[in-house]
């Protein structure tokens, strides 16, 4: 019988695979470790350091050969930390104290990590993570814990998983994700969503029951996880897997059909993506006709310096090309400029401590003050526009002045590109995310200047209702059908249409089939969502008329209770 643990299923689907533990705890191994004489331990430590440096060298060569310069650069810095002459001395000293080579290695790097953590400079503080990472690598070698080799499909598990861990693994290798923490908005979960990877969060201490390499079955709907299942248990899941396959097949035949109502009203269903590879999967597997939100944060995260224009250009160009490839060049790729703030500080963006980062120095507020960050990004998008259809979208805008200032930067970027003799597209659309109540209220004015609006409901709901959706005690108040929210959305869409501009949506609400029909009735042109949600929404739109949807909308707008609206719409589906 398998051991069972349970969490909250957040991305549906059954996954079968072996566990790959992220952020492994070494304590039990350290206790079990039997050290030899100090001299022998010192020799072992020295040999481990050499071996780990050799392994890193090989990985660096591989990354370099594949053109993955960033990864190679990070590992190169790690290699130097491994071979650092001051470390071998510190390790020897620690062995004289504790007698154990792996413990000495961990202690030596920990001591350095502490020094860096105490530094003024935010960048240096961040490097403490690298030191602990390196120390752990060598200690694992000494303890005989092998670096996981990815054979077949893996289920990545950890108390909290760094987004870079999931982003760094090839998509086709990750069958599932298990998180100890409960957040459904953790970055790891957002990435998993764009790739339709079955995910369970909030298993808490259950994570300790799973060991590296354990075979598990994970149900992303019920949140159940079976560790080391028996053959019978595997069989019982085969039925579920079969049903999953059938639904998949039904959705697959919808892939190339348009999202069009019975009376001929078409809505564009496009994808939210975090990397160009997501765009490829979205158009090929789920029939997205473009990208409504390219979160450019991943271009910025995991970097030690401001990402270069050339590197950004390559990423954007790839996504723009994928969109153009499926739709005879008509597929639009909307790239959102950097949306980062104090909640996720970066070495090259000094935000400092803030009481409330979500109401702080972030997104467009940083971009407008940091020409060195903003210009390379704008130039890279304008250049990518040559390869298809690109659009620039500014996040967190609250007034007309911010938009006009940002637009002026776009014009400057064009002038710079022209002076440099670079090819760029002059027809790149420029619009904003409507995610603050201020922008929604001022939509009639903003609509005169922008090319488009894209409603970001995650933040719009949060800011409008003053509800932190991560707070379990008040999460019942978080509802995108709240009448106040619906009025702001309707106002935004109508304002755009009145000025001959278009409005779309890129928040989670867009992936709710019940919301899709009323949004369509309000006059929305495009719905952007994590690609795996596209078939569900498409199915709903293809089975209703616009006339009926408008009737439903009229009824909904008369209702005063968001929960009742939600229930009412659910009865129709």
């Amino acid at each position, binding site marked *: 019988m398998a051991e069972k643990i349970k969490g909250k299923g957040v991305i549906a689907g059954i996954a079968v695979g072996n566990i790959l533990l992220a952020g492994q705890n070494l304590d039990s191994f350290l206790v079990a470790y039997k050290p030899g004489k100090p001299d022998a331990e010192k020799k072992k430590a020295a040999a481990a350091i050499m071996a780990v440096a050799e392994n890193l060298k090989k990985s660096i060569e591989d990354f370099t050969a594949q053109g993955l310069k960033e990864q190679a650069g990070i590992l*190169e*810095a790690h290699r*130097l930390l491994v071979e650092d002459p001051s470390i071998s001395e510190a390790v020897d000293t620690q062995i004289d104290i504790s007698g154990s080579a792996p413990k000495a290695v961990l202690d030596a790097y920990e001591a350095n990590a502490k020094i860096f953590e105490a*530094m*003024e400079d935010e960048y240096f503080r961040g490097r403490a993570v690298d030191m602990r990472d390196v120390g752990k690598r060598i200690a694992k070698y000494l303890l005989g814990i092998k670096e996981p080799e990815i054979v077949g499909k893996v289920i990545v598990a950890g108390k909290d998983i760094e987004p870079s861990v999931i982003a760094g693994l090839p998509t086709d290798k990750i069958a599932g994700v298990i998180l100890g923490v409960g957040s459904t908005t953790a970055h790891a979960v957002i990435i998993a969503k764009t790739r339709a990877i079955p995910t369970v969060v909030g298993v808490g201490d259950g994570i300790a029951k799973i060991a590296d390499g354990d075979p598990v079955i994970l149900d992303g709907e019920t949140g159940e996880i079976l560790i080391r299942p028996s053959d019978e248990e595997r069989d019982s899941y085969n039925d579920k897997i079969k049903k999953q396959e059938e639904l998949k097949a039904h959705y697959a035949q919808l892939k190339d059909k348009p999202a069009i109502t019975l009376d001929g009203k078409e809505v564009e269903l496009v994808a939210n993506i975090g990397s160009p590879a997501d765009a490829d999967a979205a158009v090929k597997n789920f029939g997205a006709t473009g990208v409504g939100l390219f979160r450019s944060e991943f271009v910025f995260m995991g970097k030690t310096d401001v990402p270069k224009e050339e590197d950004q250009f390559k990423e954007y160009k790839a996504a723009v090309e994928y969109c153009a490839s499926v739709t005879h060049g008509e597929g639009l790729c909307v790239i959102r400029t950097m949306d980062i703030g104090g909640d996720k500080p970066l070495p090259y963006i000094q935000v400092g401590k803030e009481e409330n980062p979500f109401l702080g120095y972030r997104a467009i507020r940083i971009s407008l003050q940091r020409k060195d960050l903003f210009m390379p990004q704008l130039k890279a998008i304008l250049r990518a526009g040559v390869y298809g259809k690109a659009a620039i979208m500014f996040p967190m805008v609250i007034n007309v002045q911010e938009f006009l200032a940002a637009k002026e930067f776009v014009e400057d970027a064009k002038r710079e590109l022209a002076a440099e003799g670079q090819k760029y597209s002059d027809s790149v659309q420029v619009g904003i995310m409507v995610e603050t109540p201020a922008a929604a209220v001022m939509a009639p004015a903003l609509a005169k200047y922008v090319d488009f609006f894209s409603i970001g409901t995650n933040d719009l709901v949060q800011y409008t209702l003053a509800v932190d959706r991560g707070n379990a005690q008040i999460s019942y108040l978080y509802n995108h059908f709240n009448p106040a929210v619906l009025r702001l959305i309707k106002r935004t869409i109508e304002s755009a249409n009145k000025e001959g501009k278009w409005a779309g949506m890129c928040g989670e609400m867009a992936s709710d089939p019940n919301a899709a029909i009323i949004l369509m009735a309000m006059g929305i042109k495009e719905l952007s969502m994590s690609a795996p949600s596209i078939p569900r929404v498409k199915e709903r739109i293809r089975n209703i008329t616009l006339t009926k949807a408008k009737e439903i909308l009229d009824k909904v707008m008369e209702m005063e209770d968001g929960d009742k609206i939600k229930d009412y719409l659910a009865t129709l589906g």
Partner: protein
Amino acid sequence: MTEATTTIENKTGIHARPASVFVQKASSFKSKVQIKAKGKTVDAKSILMIMSMGLTKGTEITLVADGPDEKEAVAALKKLVDDKFGED
């Protein structure tokens, strides 16, 4: 023993990438190489020691090498610092 004094000019100072480049270069010489700055002297072949000095833009540093290729070492490392590690 050979010495040379110069000033860090690249805008982000010696953080990880420049420190990596610097240590790789220093390690390619047989001589013992040290950096003196802010009243401290550290091994120039140790990325930890160099990074822990927090060498920001405008810091004056002295490069000291002692060994068979000390002249070449000091000249090459000074050039690296003066060229801002290929940044900017």
